[in-house]
């Protein structure tokens, strides 16, 4: 008994220091948030009269709203380690169908039909991945190619661009505001909130993380993996479709490459998100941070007249910087923990020997 106590007397000093070190290192989790703040500070100092205004903030939120919606759906798939490469093509198809159908039917019915089609595509993706056991990368690469073909086919009769006969009431969704806040921002915040609640606060969401963590463990825990994966792809498809619908509402037209850039942008945003706060995990809050970073960059660069091509270069560098720094922090954290654990053991050993 006395031995034990004497051992413990030797221990406290190091862990305190280690705890401090770890506390400092925890800041690394907020690296992307800090990066966002730095970006805001830089743009504010360079364009003090334009950038930090409420109006520009709303503008940024409006610009990123569709990206946020699409990326949120992708996040659900990524949580389960499944890639959905078809989101860009689904968004395009959603847009093309919206522009093609709305002139001929009531807006609500048309939008519902488009979303059903996109949910159906998600269902097909999910079925291919879960029941045929095709890697999601390949399966969605295939459906993406098929859907691109459909979009070209659907628009080929009308000179590739559909713009006539889209009802005014529908277009108001993309341009209207409530209390100066664009409707689209509400759409984005609503989607993000719902998916955040789904992933963090429901059994389904926790099970999705379990599937992503370890497929085997999830299977032995009795989780029906296939159903969750199908649900993930359906959500991803539906939200990509919604992105397409809202694209038409905003732009008033659709053409067969309209949603293509959402593919790479959504992946960038989701991976930057996985490098924030809960490092190495995809989550909706992170996706929101990633989307905000992307929106801030594009907005600031546009205000500074930086050409679009250079924005691509910066987008790539930010992705690498975010993920690298998160990885390095993580490694540092681990080594400090290891060191403190080792130190503890050495101390205990010394204490035991002295006793």
């Amino acid at each position, binding site marked *: 008994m006395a031995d034990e106590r004497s051992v413990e007397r030797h221990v406290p000093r190091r862990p305190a220091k280690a705890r401090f070190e770890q506390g400092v290192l925890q800041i690394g989790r907020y690296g992307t948030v800090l990066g966002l703040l730095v970006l805001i500070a830089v743009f504010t100092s360079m364009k003090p009269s334009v950038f930090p205004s409420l109006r520009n903030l709303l503008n940024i939120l409006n610009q990123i709203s569709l990206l946020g919606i699409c990326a949120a759906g992708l996040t659900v798939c990524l949580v389960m380690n499944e890639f959905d490469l078809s989101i860009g093509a689904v968004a395009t198809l959603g847009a093309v169908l919206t522009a093609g159908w709305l002139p001929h039917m009531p807006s609500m019915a048309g939008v519902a039909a488009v979303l059903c089609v996109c949910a159906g595509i998600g269902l097909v993706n999910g079925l291919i991945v879960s029941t045929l056991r095709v890697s999601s990368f390949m399966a969605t690469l295939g459906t993406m190619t*098929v859907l691109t073909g*459909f979009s070209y086919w659907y628009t080929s009769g009308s000179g590739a661009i559909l713009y006539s006969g889209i009802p005014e009431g529908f277009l108001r969704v993309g341009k209207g505001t409530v209390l100066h806040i664009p409707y689209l921002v509400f759409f984005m915040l609503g989607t993000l909130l719902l998916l955040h609640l789904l992933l963090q606060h429901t059994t389904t969401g926790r099970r999705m993380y379990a599937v992503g963590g370890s497929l085997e463990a999830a299977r032995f825990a009795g989780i029906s993996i296939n159903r969750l994966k199908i649900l993930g792809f359906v959500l991803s498809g539906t939200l990509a479709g919604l992105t397409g619908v809202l694209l038409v509402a905003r732009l008033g037209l659709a053409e067969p490459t309209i949603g293509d850039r959402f593919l790479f942008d959504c992946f960038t945003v989701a991976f930057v998100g996985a490098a924030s706060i809960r490092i190495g995990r995809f989550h909706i809050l992170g996706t929101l941070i990633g989307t905000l970073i992307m929106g801030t960059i594009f907005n600031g660069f546009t205000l500074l007249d930086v050409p679009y091509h250079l924005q691509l270069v910066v987008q790539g560098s930010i992705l690498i910087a975010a993920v690298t720094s998160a990885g390095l922090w993580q490694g540092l954290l681990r080594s400090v923990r290891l060191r403190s654990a080792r130190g503890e053991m050495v101390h205990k050993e010394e204490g035991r020997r002295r006793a």
Partner: protein
Amino acid sequence: MRSGGNAQRASYRSVAGGLLLLLRRYGMIVSLLLLFAFFALLRPGIFPTVSNLVSILKQIALLGILSAGLTVCLVLGDFDLSVAATATWSGVMVAALLPQVSMWLAMPAVVSMGVGIGLINGFFSAVIGISPFIVTLATQTMLRGLTLWYTGGYSLYSGIPRAFVRIGRGTFLGIPYLVYILALVYIIIYLAANRMSFGKKLYAVGGNPTAARYSGIHVIRVHLTAFVVSGVLAALTGVLLAARLSSGQPRAGEGLLLGAFAACFLGATTFRSGRFNILGTLVGVLFIGTLNNGMVLLGVPFYLQYVIQGAILVLAIAASGLARAGLRTPSR
């Protein structure tokens, strides 16, 4: 009696398993032959001619070279999404260099840029430890931006010497130079992957990195080499693309990315069990080339070509997956 029945059932199973194994291994080749027969029946005077075969080979040459490099990366499980952007960038770079320097200087310079891009990809993914998917997603975005920035969105076509264009368009003994280059690339990669220690290391690291490390393989170096191979072949593809188009076009290589992945994944269903291999990739490339060529000859509109390509891709992979599932059940 009962045990006899079991044995009989087992033998049925093994026969079925053997058939499945055959189907799984050579299914892709059978489908390639069927596809060939199909087009030959529908277009007997045009499709199965020597000149059309040569033109198929010429059409797939660039995709084939790009896919060969990608295969080496995929064996390790490294997704290199930057190959097409590297090719586009290299095409633009060589078109920019040609008016100023000799083509025998410009081409190695651009190919060594491919080495650099490969090293950057490899450094961030193997040394720093970021998932290659993200690294190459980022480098491809950056390269796309740099390409658009350098060209301003326009093609570079002035001052390209005729000797350079001849590489992309000339023939020797009736066969285009591009096809010789394609064959050379595949022979080299085949020998490296199957007859040299590099191939053993490659498949060892791809199979189990930890075991590979404990058996004394420098895992990081293998990853770096694979990315460099992929970068070099992508750059070579870009150079040849510029030679074929006699210009550097800022979006020329974009369509190659999906084709290359499709070829590699189709190839992974052939010869080796669910593994990426260079001969399989060649079959995959041939399959895509034959399909495209035949569809054009049949006058299939281009959007339907997308639909058919995508559907065939999913079907082929799903079929091989089913064959695998069928193989797994008897042994359980």
